[in-house]
């Protein structure tokens, strides 16, 4: 619950700065948290008896519980959650006046929708999801299954997009450490390397994707 509220604050800030894509990013986190309805409902219920700080502290353990159920989702919330935690500390007082109505509202929602069990291919425990998203999830599953059956090649992730660019990169002169020899591009690639842990294929992918970005915007 607190996580959702902080996300809302972030979304508002992002909209004010008109960085709309970032709200997409946060929306995705919202979807992931929604897909684990148990922590959300538990969080909503537990809020009634626990203070704000305690709830903030309790959430990580609940995320840990979610981790037990869905291990792959564990790494994602950490960096995002850490970044949210700081502004929450900074704004310990302002959220409370806002918090009244959303709390009651979400508590009611939690009571009304305990979560719908979602059928899974594996015979493990059922995953409970938001009832509003149940049909959408099933629809997307069918779409993905159809796409995979029709076009199996789509799953393969290529190391590069364009053969000619790849060959050109192979031909370029490289200095010690494997970076390209060029005064201007050295700085650019240092930035790129700083943002990513991998060196060569990442540089190629980034440059190719950068070229793709304008065409994507055009289309």
């Amino acid at each position, binding site marked *: 619950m607190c996580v959702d509220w902080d996300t809302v604050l972030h979304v508002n800030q992002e909209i004010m700065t008109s960085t709309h894509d*970032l709200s*997409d990013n946060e929306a995705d986190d919202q979807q992931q948290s929604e897909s684990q309805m148990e922590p959300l409902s538990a969080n909503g219920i537990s809020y009634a008896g626990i203070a704000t700080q305690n709830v903030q502290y309790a959430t990580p353990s609940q995320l840990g519980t979610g981790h037990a159920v869905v291990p792959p989702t564990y790494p994602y919330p950490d*960096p995002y959650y850490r970044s949210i935690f700081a502004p929450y500390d900074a704004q310990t007082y302002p959220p409370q006046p806002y918090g009244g109505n959303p709390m009651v509202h979400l508590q009611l929602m939690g009571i009304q929708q305990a979560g719908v069990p979602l059928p899974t291919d594996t015979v493990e425990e059922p995953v409970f999801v938001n009832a509003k998203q149940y049909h959408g999830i099933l629809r997307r599953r069918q779409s993905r299954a159809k796409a995979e059956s029709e076009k199996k090649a789509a799953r393969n992730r290529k190391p590069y997009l364009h053969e000619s660019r790849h060959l050109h990169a192979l031909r370029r002169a490289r200095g010690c450490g494997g970076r390209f020899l060029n005064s201007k591009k050295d700085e650019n690639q240092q930035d790129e390397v700083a943002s990513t842990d991998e060196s060569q294929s990442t540089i190629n992918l980034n440059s190719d994707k950068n070229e793709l970005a304008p065409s*994507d915007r055009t289309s």
Partner: protein
Amino acid sequence: MMDNVGGSSSNIAENSGIIREQDRLLPIANVGKIMKQILPPNAKISKESKETMQECVSEFISFVTSEASEKCRKERRKTVNGDDICWALGSLGFDDYAEPLRRYLQRYREQELDRANNPPKRG
């Protein structure tokens, strides 16, 4: 955002064959830049993180868009517009995101009106 949605759907329609990776996913460099905006300046993002986020955000776009598209199908409309996306977010329980998106859409339309009323002078 609307352009992106329209573009990707038209791309899928064009390629009756294989859906290429660059059509199914957002560009990984753009995803990395967006992720970097929220992190401290000296933070590093692994390629695995970017690829994972790439899959997540692309799936979320398809998830919301399919909800909006279903609404358009029922109403026998062919064009998915911004209001349909806002409605879909609310319908899927993302009410906290639908409201900021409506405000964004309103300001976007105001800007479009300004451009229409004041066309740029051609040199």
